[in-house]
């Protein structure tokens, strides 16, 4: 039986095993390979997509759970790399090997859609489920601060009043916040 959902703004219908994780529907059925397979157990974050705006691990989300919902993948985040997160990522040359970066970017975009004034600790907390084997964490944090500035800039279509919602997420911190140092880094990103 076909399952319908919205994928990157368009209606999509797939006839697959309802148990099949969204990740494999994207990668193998629909050939959208920007979303990556890392662990298959929601431990690495490489498969992160947005489902109704929430950052979600597609490797453990069955396609049946997605029926009727809105899915956004890295390919659909923006046209022409125009999302502030993507702009900041390129400006600061965040990716190295790049394998985890689709997931990092989707997590960061979901975070910034809810809140733009972020402390280092909040960024670290929200991003702790996305691991990077190259160790780009410092630039990721810097780029999120930079993207937040772009969000807040007048005229940006995504500039919006800050919402109070805090992302419920993992609590472990990848690295301790170094408040003073990071303020300087964020400032230096201009």
């Amino acid at each position, binding site marked *: 039986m076909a399952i319908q959902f919205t994928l990157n703004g368009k209606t999509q219908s797939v006839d697959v095993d309802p148990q099949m994780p969204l990740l494999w529907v994207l990668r*193998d059925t629909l050939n959208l390979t920007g979303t990556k397979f890392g662990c298959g157990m929601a431990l690495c974050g490489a498969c992160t997509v947005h489902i109704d705006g929430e950052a979600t691990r597609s490797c453990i989300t069955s396609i049946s759970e997605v029926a009727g919902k809105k899915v956004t993948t890295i390919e659909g985040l923006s046209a022409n790399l125009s999302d502030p997160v993507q702009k900041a990522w390129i400006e600061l040359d965040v990716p190295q*090997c790049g*394998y985890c970066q689709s997931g990092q970017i989707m997590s960061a975009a979901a975070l910034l859609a809810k809140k733009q004034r972020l402390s280092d600790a909040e960024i670290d907390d929200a991003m702790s489920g996305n691991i990077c084997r190259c160790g780009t964490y410092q630039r990721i944090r810097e780029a999120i601060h930079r993207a937040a500035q772009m969000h807040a800039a007048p005229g940006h279509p995504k500039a919006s009043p800050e919402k109070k919602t805090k992302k419920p997420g993992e609590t472990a911190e990848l690295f301790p916040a170094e408040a003073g140092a990071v303020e300087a880094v964020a400032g230096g990103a201009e």
Partner: protein
Amino acid sequence: MSSAATKVDRREFLRSAAAGGAGLVIGFYLPGEREASAAAAAGPFAPNAWIRIGTDDTITLVIDKSEMGQGVVTSLAMIMAEELGCDWKKIHTEFAPAAKEYANPVFGMQGTGGSTSVRGSWAELSKAGAQAREMLIATAAEKWGADKSWCRAEDGYVIHTQTTEKLSYGKLAEAAGKLPVPVDAKPKDPKQYRIIGKDMKRLDSADKTCGRAEFGIDVRVLGMMHAVVARCPVFGGKAASFNADKAKAVRGVKNVVQISSGVAVVADNTWSAMQGRDALEIKWNEGANAGLTSAAISKLLADAASKPGSAVARKEGDAGAGLASAAKKIEAVYEAPFLAHATMEPMNCTAHVRADGCDVWAPTQFQTVTRWWRRKRPG
């Protein structure tokens, strides 16, 4: 690198070709065992080249090392772009196929590792760029009836320094491709560098920011199947017997086959293959390593190291005499555990087997070794 001391007149040459609007194709072969690859120039691994300039001004730089996040796409492109004199923002890069002419000069085979990419490729890529630049300048000079010394190459143009006329590389490409290749082309004086030594933007950031970068695991061939392998939990073990009935009943599973490293489940998508693997019933013959423990491995290494002379990595002076007369002696044993490489991209490989050959795509650091394995084990 040994090439400097070798005669270059006979063996070193550039191949130029102007084919189907592709314009200037430049590559060269170094002496020694890679001479044989000249024959491959016309073979299936063409273009055998590092630099291609299209008549539409596109400049393609071929990267013959594996990009693993170390930035080699950018650093090797910097070497070539510096010598070629092209606009950094208009460069295209593509990865080289497995071919002898792309052998790492340090290893003698195509491979990426040991921090050899820039120091190993420096000379040959500088020269490839310089040769292309000189051929473009010679072409422009001839068109203008000018002396070559009046011309300089910059940002994708040859500029006539007296008249300030300029011609784009694309406009010069076809004619430049017909010129003989200058074997003694001189790389720039470092004082003239405009790219090397500067903090250039990475060429691959945009592709890695929108999901467009293609990793080994992303290769798609029309109608391809996906397979996963159930492997023995012990190195060297083999499947003694297995029952695939339940695996074959999984939706999407097409076949189950025993291979040397285990039992492979083939399906029309990865997830079905994984479900099929979980449903396999396998009896393993764990083989000679069945009882192996970490303690046993440590003992094996310690025994080997204690044999006289077996583990001397470096010998200088008289350590024995020095130790015998030392006032204070410190004895310690250091052990390093086995550490998996642990890439985030799971090991994978795509093969397209046809009647006339086989294409293999793999995230690998050693392209020609991979090809050798493929030939050795066609099964």
